[in-house]
């Protein structure tokens, strides 16, 4: 390999043993994304999201009994005090997750006492008890949507200042793609959405754009160095491959961190880290295969119309 000058397109191709032209196959990547996105979107319309009590309001009791219990015993006891709701058993049928309407303290104590006598003794020190009034849930949803919108606006602003508006738009489209994939998968498998889901989505927001910006930064640098006769597609492909190892390795370290939270972090951070895992993976994919390709499509199209206008004028 020759040295002493910035790498050429051919040299970049040689450095990577697995090189293939990403830009030329961009329609494949768009198609691949649609294959993942469409079922998620359909599911969103058909069955919606499995919203937890944080959004709908309600009470959730997570209790550990001293011996294994049955679902029927718990639901029957709930009925005896005039309540109903889904019960989930885990941990060799000793842990029960009970969901029901938002309970007043008296009602909650009545239920706990009834469970104690009818179902069995439970460990008071490992009881988890959440209650969210319906008004609080609506507020949370509203705040979450605002947070997403405002973060998006600020990011578009920042990228437009530091890059160009086209970069901002392409980056945001890739972001929405990532968020839609996560939300779609959560809808498809009816995984519960709690308040930490918003945090996960927003982190994906921040992280995935972080990934994309790294590639955009290289495109910005290479675009400035383009000579006459250089092809824009090749420059983008080169930029993607120049930053390939970076994109993969940075995502890998974050995935390592997330995987350890997912596997070892306990039940309450499981769905939260799962959402981020999916998001970071999709984010890594979209920054390489989607964001720059959209940027390219927009750039090509805006150029073509200008050229077309000229030809029309010549006639």
């Amino acid at each position: 390999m020759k040295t002493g000058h910035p790498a050429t397109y051919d040299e970049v191709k040689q450095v990577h043993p697995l090189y293939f032209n990403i830009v030329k196959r961009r329609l494949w990547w768009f198609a691949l994304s649609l294959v993942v996105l469409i079922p998620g979107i359909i599911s969103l319309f058909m069955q919606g999201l499995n919203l937890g009590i944080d959004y709908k309001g309600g009470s959730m009791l997570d209790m550990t009994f001293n011996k294994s219990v049955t679902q029927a015993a718990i639901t029957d006891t709930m009925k005896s005090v005039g309540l109903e709701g889904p019960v989930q058993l885990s941990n060799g049928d000793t842990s029960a997750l009970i969901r029901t309407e938002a309970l007043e303290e008296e009602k909650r104590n009545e239920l706990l006492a009834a469970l104690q006598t009818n179902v069995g003794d439970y460990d008071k020190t490992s009881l988890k008890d959440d209650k969210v009034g319906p008004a609080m849930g609506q507020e949370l949803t509203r705040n979450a949507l605002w947070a997403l919108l405002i973060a998006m606006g600020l990011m578009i602003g920042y990228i437009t200042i530091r890059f160009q508006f086209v970069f901002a738009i392409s980056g945001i489209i890739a972001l929405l793609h990532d968020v839609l994939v996560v939300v779609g998968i959560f809808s498809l498998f009816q995984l519960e959405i709690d308040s930490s889901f918003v945090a996960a989505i927003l982190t994906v927001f921040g992280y995935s754009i972080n990934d994309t910006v790294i590639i955009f930064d290289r495109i910005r640098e290479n675009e400035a160095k383009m000579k006459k006769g250089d092809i824009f597609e090749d420059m983008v492909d080169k930029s993607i491959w120049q930053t390939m190892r970076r994109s993969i390795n940075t995502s890998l370290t974050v995935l390592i961190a997330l995987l350890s939270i997912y596997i070892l972090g306990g039940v309450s951070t499981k769905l939260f880290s799962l959402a981020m895992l999916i998001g970071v993976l999709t984010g890594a994919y979209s920054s390489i295969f989607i964001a720059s390709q959209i940027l390219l499509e927009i750039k090509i199209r805006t150029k073509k119309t200008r050229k077309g206008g000229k030809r029309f004028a010549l006639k």
Partner: protein
Amino acid sequence: MRRGNIIKLVVLVLLVATAVALSIKPLVDPVKGVLLGLDLRGGVHLVLQAEPNEDGTPITKDDIDKAKAIIEKRVNDLGVSEPIVQPDYDKKRIVIDLAGVTDPDKAVDILKTTAKLTFRDPQGNVVLKGEDLKDAKGGQGQGSGYVVNLSFSSEGAKKFGDLTTQLIGQRLGVYLDDDLLTNPTVNTPILNGQAEITGYDTLESAANDAVLMRSGSLPVSMSIAEKRQVGASLGVDSLNKSIQAGLYGLIFIFLFMLIFYRIPGAVANFSLFVYALIVLWVFWGFRVVLTLPGIAGFILSVGMAVDFNIIIYERIKEEIRAGKSLRAGVESGFSRAFITVIDAHVTTLIAALTLYYFGTGAIKGFALTLGVGIVVTLFTGITFTRTVLRWIVGTNPKMNTTWFGVRRDG
């Protein structure tokens, strides 16, 4: 130059090692160390919503302040180490965080009670109100059982004296809200303003009622809009699990960096210690409460702190491949990658800040640790990592570039 740099490096490693060793104790101290949230050591989070007054008068800021003062009094009687009682005037709410409270059920019970103390005659008319009460204390009674000792203000003492004179031989009901506490018969007029309510089985129950009586009634009725209660052992369990998760995450990231980046990888790992130390001391200094999502945010920020190094090292590799010397490669790699890193991290910071602003409770904790993490990443990256790399290159400018992960073939 060579020896000087080696000495500097050795001294630095020793310094960081000492700093880590000295920091562990003050940081994990259960009382003065980094604060743990209630999800990590058990406790209750309550949001009390003031209900609109029945007569339609609006709830004022003053009402919320009064309610807050009363709730604070009750909280202090619970003996929680660092309780948080925050008013939210816009939404007419009071947010209460009691981390480490031993009996959460009892705490909730005491806090939500409106607890209006009244004395009623046999016909049920309110004849004396709690406002005239100066103090109430639980204590041992003269016979068996426990009592609440009441002392009235001078005006209250006069009223109580008149009352007991009138009602001699009749019953005087003592009510907390609509619950009859006791219904004693007045034997003699009590003129000195000192009375006692007898008939408690335990000192605890007497003391509980005394707290409610002396803290007075809430000026508005409040309902529990949100409650999150975590048992103590569940909290400890979560804490252990997240420490374990963090530990394994760190080990794998360390290995990854060593294998892929060799010497700079080792520098990155070394910087991570400094990074973690700074972040934890920042939490300690600003009394940041570490919660479960907060720890997740911290672990994630470690993953992202490594990002900073990867971006720079890959750039250095490119510069070296393009024919620059090791030293020039490190310099230009740093300055060029820095622009990339700033742009990338500012966008993430935007997300963290919006989350912090709009988030509540647990989400705020997550955003805070993530945000602090990003800022500290930038700081350690620019100052610490850069200097250490310079020194290492300084020990031997002709160092084989394979130690920087660059193959120079052909």
